[in-house]
């Protein structure tokens, strides 16, 4: 019996109950006349909480139990392994992009919008994967670059009436890269946590700047001129245009990043992640390569930000919230650090699961972050390298030679 009491799961649940006890089971009663505060027993919050949490805990427990006791785990893991291998196949991304494109005309506006948002997250996850996954630089302020892209376009179309998203896109991409480079410059001597904090500081100060400038509309945000938004094209409605655009861009980006990954540049990034000093001694210009990773990653975020602004027609400072940065980071980690299909899958899961949950079980959406936590814990236990992590790198060139 004592052995079971010491089981991590039991300890974990007990700990959770203990920590949440004051918040869930008690309510503070203020007595303003006497100026006293007393805690009163109020379990209704807890009941609601656990009723909503039950499906989440159920899934986590099922996975854990399956792993622990089921004979099916091994074949399941094997099956997943071969599925991972499939994602590395050349035709896989092409089929995926074509399927998404073909599905476009049959999707209603609601699902098209969801598709666009998911695609924008994929674009960001792909970009962040370059710094965090490949080069091993932890960036906590990624949303800062995303917001930069949004605001650069929003302010641009105010200053230059007649600016269209397709004219601004390459410029914002390059500008985003330049901003990434500039933010990277002072960070280069920092490693690990320090770098994360500096990037976080960048995102926070950028948000404060946007909140306080007049041209950005402060807290209220900035609405784009209707003409600056993504327009319908012939018989294609605007949302379908945006959807097709985003699908193609995600495909193109994944393709480009994959080619960089399987090249001296990608190898240099991974080498820096693995051992910076050894990489330098083997001739890798560490500083330059880190800056390049940073800049490219920021450029993708800025591009996603621009598309967001051009699609929604509105930007506000919430775009660079810390939660946004953490969300993209969680997508990259869930998919598997360094894995390109992983970033796409992670983004899809972490965007669609909460969104669909909010549609189907509105009560659960309050516990979105808790759900993320549960997913992360389950993943760390079952597959610490991420869903699609650590697929053996195939050598394309060797196949050709």
């Amino acid at each position: 019996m004592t052995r079971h009491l010491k089981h991590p799961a039991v300890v974990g649940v007990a700990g959770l109950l203990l920590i949440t006890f004051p918040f869930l089971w008690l309510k503070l009663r203020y007595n303003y006349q006497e100026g006293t505060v007393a805690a009163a027993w109020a379990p209704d919050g807890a009941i609601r909480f656990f009723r909503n949490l039950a499906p989440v805990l159920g899934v986590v427990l099922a996975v854990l139990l399956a792993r622990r006791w089921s004979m099916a785990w091994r074949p399941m893991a094997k099956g997943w392994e071969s599925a991972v291998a499939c994602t590395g196949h050349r035709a896989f991304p092409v089929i995926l992009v074509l399927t998404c494109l073909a599905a476009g005309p049959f999707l209603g506006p609601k699902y098209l919008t969801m598709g666009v948002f998911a695609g924008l997250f994929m674009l960001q996850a792909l970009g962040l994967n370059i710094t965090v996954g490949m080069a091993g630089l932890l960036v906590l302020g990624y949303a800062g670059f995303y917001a930069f892209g949004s605001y650069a376009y929003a302010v641009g179309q105010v200053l230059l009436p007649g600016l269209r998203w397709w004219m601004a896109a390459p410029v914002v991409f390059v500008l985003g890269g330049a901003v990434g480079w500039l933010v990277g410059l002072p960070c280069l001597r920092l490693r690990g946590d320090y770098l994360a904090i500096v990037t976080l500081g960048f995102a926070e100060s950028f948000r404060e700047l946007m909140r306080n400038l007049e041209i950005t509309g402060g807290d209220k945000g900035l609405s784009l001129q209707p003409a600056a938004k993504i327009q319908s094209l012939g018989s294609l409605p605007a949302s379908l245009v945006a959807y097709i655009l985003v699908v193609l861009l995600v495909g193109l980006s994944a393709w480009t990043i994959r080619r960089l990954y399987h090249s001296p540049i990608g190898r240099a990034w991974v080498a820096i992640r693995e051992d910076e000093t050894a990489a330098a001694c083997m001739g890798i210009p560490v500083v330059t390569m880190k800056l390049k990773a940073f800049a490219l990653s920021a450029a993708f975020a800025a591009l996603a930000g621009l598309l967001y602004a051009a699609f929604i027609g509105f930007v506000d400072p919430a775009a660079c919230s810390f939660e946004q940065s953490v969300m993209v980071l969680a997508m990259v980690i869930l998919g598997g650090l360094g894995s390109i299909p992983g970033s796409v899958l992670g983004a899809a899961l972490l965007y669609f699961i909460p969104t669909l949950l909010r549609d189907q079980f509105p009560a659960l959406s309050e516990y979105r972050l808790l759900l993320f936590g549960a997913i992360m814990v389950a993943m760390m236990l079952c597959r610490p390298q991420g869903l699609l992590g650590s697929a053996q790198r195939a050598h394309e060139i060797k196949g050709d030679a």
Partner: protein
Amino acid sequence: MSAPLLAARGLGKSFGGLKAVDDINLEARPGSLLSVIGPNGAGKTTLFNCLTGIYRPERGRVEFNGRNITGAPPHRVCHLGIARTFQNIRLFPEMSALDNVLVAQFHHSTLAPWDIILRTPGFRRCEREHLAEAMELLEWVGLAGKAEAQARDLSYGLQRRLEIARALAARPRVLLLDEPCAGMNPAEVNGIIELIATLRRRELAILLIEHHMKVVMEISDRILVLDHGVALAEGEPAAIRSNPEVIRAYLGSEA
């Protein structure tokens, strides 16, 4: 005698009050092997770190081919043609053995980003050449069958060999080996000795830190003895073996 490729002139580096390396002179010539020996903490690895740019020496100069390269960053030093291995193995553990070697060829490729993204013929040729060279090196150190294995999964002895292959992939003219035989059994040590012997025929200048006295005496052209950061003696193996100061400080009676 040929001119020295890599030379240290009055090199000094301290950590706080400790003079880790003090007024060291050395010259490495092509095709010859200079061993650096001394007790633990004598400053051997610090000396290597000063030569390869990991530390910036406080006094003295490092010269490569007559050029002053003191304080050049490690990747510049590598580009000039100085490669090294590490005392505590520093491979890229999550990369395959082949990728470990390919990384060191970074500065040989002069590809533009569009070459890489568009996979131009230039890119393909360059990658093919690098791959062939890397496979040759792996074969040479006895790792041909393990090219796709992750570095962390290799046995200790193979990891040491992979480090040598990786250093050679940078196409160095000077090779610094920091205790390549540490922790190896006699058979493995003999294997490394053979490797080093073939290396010398490539007209490489080799600097070797090693504790196996048998190895050092057998393959060195000259030996530099360090103690407490100071050069105790420098000379040919026979002279070092009979140097009373060296015996007292390091070799002991067993030598």
